């Protein structure tokens, strides 16, 4: 089976009646890695949250479909079970719930009743991924994200990604706050996911992450829209020259969503 298709058309999203996204079009297919870049305050994280269905974000116009199914009609958990995944910028701390208990519940939620993962198989696969991400085994028995360092939280998000094996993943600033070693490990995990069945949207400020993960497509977001798309060379140029040339080219003075174009 070929991979899934996530299709976003003319997406408008508001938060507390303020419009943030003003018509985003984007299609992500299995086998493709997309990167969305852009300065702060341009709507990148809003796009991530809106795709996953965060209750604070209201879709006022446009559509999101996954393999033709209307994602906007689904609850957050239904989106997850349909194959979407969001690695969060600020993962919540869940006191009293161990990482391994949580992971097993999440895996079983997707597999469905009567098809639960055998315990030994789960432990084996968890151990394998922990090793791969160079995470201390003790994390499995620590409470989810509680007392984790920034780097540990990000590794844990990638651990979840590897364990849950979604069809389409959105990684929201997975590189923020990581030192170079952690960045390499996180990238290694993401790269391991590469297959025809897996599509990925990487949201980042910096080109730095893209030194380790080569995207097939690079998009630049400004004023709540995708204003420029290209290949990996676009990211390189942004890294070298910044965003000014692009703003000039597009006639944009203030790239944030505060401004109406």
């Amino acid at each position, binding site marked *: 089976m070929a991979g899934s298709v996530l299709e976003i058309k003319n997406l408008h999203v508001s938060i507390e009646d303020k419009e943030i996204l003003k018509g985003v079009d984007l299609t992500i297919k299995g086998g493709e890695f997309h990167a969305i870049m852009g300065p702060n305050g341009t709507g990148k994280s809003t796009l991530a949250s809106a795709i996953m269905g965060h209750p604070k974000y209201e879709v006022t116009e446009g559509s999101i479909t996954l393999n033709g199914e209307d994602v906007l009609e689904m609850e957050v*958990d239904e989106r*997850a079970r349909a194959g979407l995944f969001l690695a969060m910028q600020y*993962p*919540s701390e*869940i*006191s009293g719930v161990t990482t391994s208990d949580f992971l097993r*519940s*999440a895996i079983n939620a997707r597999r469905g009743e009567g098809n639960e993962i055998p315990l030994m198989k789960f432990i084996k696969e968890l151990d394998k991924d922990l090793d791969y991400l160079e995470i201390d085994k003790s994390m499995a028995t620590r409470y989810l994200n509680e007392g984790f360092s920034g780097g540990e939280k990000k590794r844990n998000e990638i651990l979840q990604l590897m364990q849950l094996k979604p069809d389409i993943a959105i990684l929201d600033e997975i590189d923020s706050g990581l030192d170079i070693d952690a960045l390499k490990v996180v990238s290694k995990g993401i790269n391991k996911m590469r297959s025809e069945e897996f599509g990925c949207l990487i949201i980042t400020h910096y080109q730095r992450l893209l030194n380790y993960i080569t995207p097939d497509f690079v998009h630049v977001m400004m004023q709540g829209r995708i204003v420029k798309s290209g290949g990996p060379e676009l990211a390189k140029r942004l890294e070298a020259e910044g965003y000014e040339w692009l703003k000039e080219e597009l006639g944009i003075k203030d790239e944030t969503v505060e401004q109406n174009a």
Partner: protein
Amino acid sequence: MAKNLPEIEEYKYGFRDKDVSVFRTEKGLTREVVEQISKMKEEPQWMLDYRLKALEHFYKRPMPQWGGDLSGLDFDEIVYYVKPSEKQGRTWDEVPEEIKQTFDRLGIPEAEQKYLAGVSAQYESEVVYHSLKEDLEELGIIFMDTDSALKEHEELFKEYFGTVVPYSDNKFSALNSAVWSGGSFIYVPKGVKATTPLQAYFRINTENMGQFERTLIIVDEGASVHYVEGCTAPTYSSSSLHSAVVEIIVKKGGYCRYTTIQNWSNNVYNLVTKRATCEADATMEWIDGNLGSKLTMKYPSIHLKGEGARGNTISIAMAGKGQVQDAGAKMYHLAPNTSSTIVSKSFSKDGGNVTYRGLVHFGRKADGAKANIECDTLILDDKSKSDTIPYNEIYNDNISLEHEAKVSKVSEEQLFYLMSRGLTEEEATEMIVMGFIEPFTKELPMEYAVEMNRLIKFEMEGSIG
């Protein structure tokens, strides 16, 4: 919308058997009723005298005017004693069939095979089935129902009975002292360590019947024991009263842990006095879980009387629709270098009302004493309430007291996070609640932790959306 717990068909413990009692007193509390109880039990005169003194005190003592609303409690509508069968069952085969069915459904025989060192199952007011594994007997540990202990170990019994909780302590300790029946009696001899927990199951099965069990545990010097009791109650239409007294004496260097999970049906008034005294270097731990009931007022207390004595209380309370949990802990530091910790986790939902009420007392002799209190509350919706009422009494400057209180709600971000991994809102909320009470459940023996999780899960069902 909350479900009324006992009305749900699948509720495993919500069944009710035909009444097989062979003797019961009339409704209401009179001198005659107390005399009858004592006579039925063939008690010595001193116990009857004690009961009657307690009864006098009960009459005189006014109802408590604090805590929960007790106005729905009618002492004249309660049956104070029901004897379920003619004789004490010593082996499983001797236990009457209907009673056995009840136990079967509670899973006691399997539990016994797998985990129990001794079973003392209380059916109505009297213990009908009681078994003690041989290794316990060999160690010299006495574990039996309190009525039998009075007959078989009268001297030991008399030495300690009523010394920790006198009948005059409060109105409900007076009531219990007048009409007590059943409960567990444990004596652990010097230096003996019971390696497996001793367990008892309790059950109310007669309408309007109060359950007034009396538990007395004596842990001799350097000895150690873990006692576990779990309570479930079937459905009834009118109010029921549970008013127990638990007395524990932990002698020098001894250790006692007392674990309770109570899940009374929501028409039960649960008014319990639990108190332990600790001699030098002794440790007492209350692990106390309160679910269900109409009103619970319970404050397990520890008197740290000897130097270096330690007390721990870990409790959870859950109040659902129409339920009030007024629970907490008391620690009395009465000697130097005593230490205590209180961890209280409470949560309320569907309009439930939960209050932490606690007392930490440092007496004049409590030099170098330390206490640490942590009370956390989780509120699941806007209809529910929570309150924290800590009292501190400090008569010594050289002590340390830390108090941390936290009230939180299930956050939108936490729910979003868990749901984004495929858990439904209900599963996500349940997971957050389970995590919240984890400091309690991790202290439970495994089979109780499983049961606890099942109960919580059950409570959470249908409470979302």
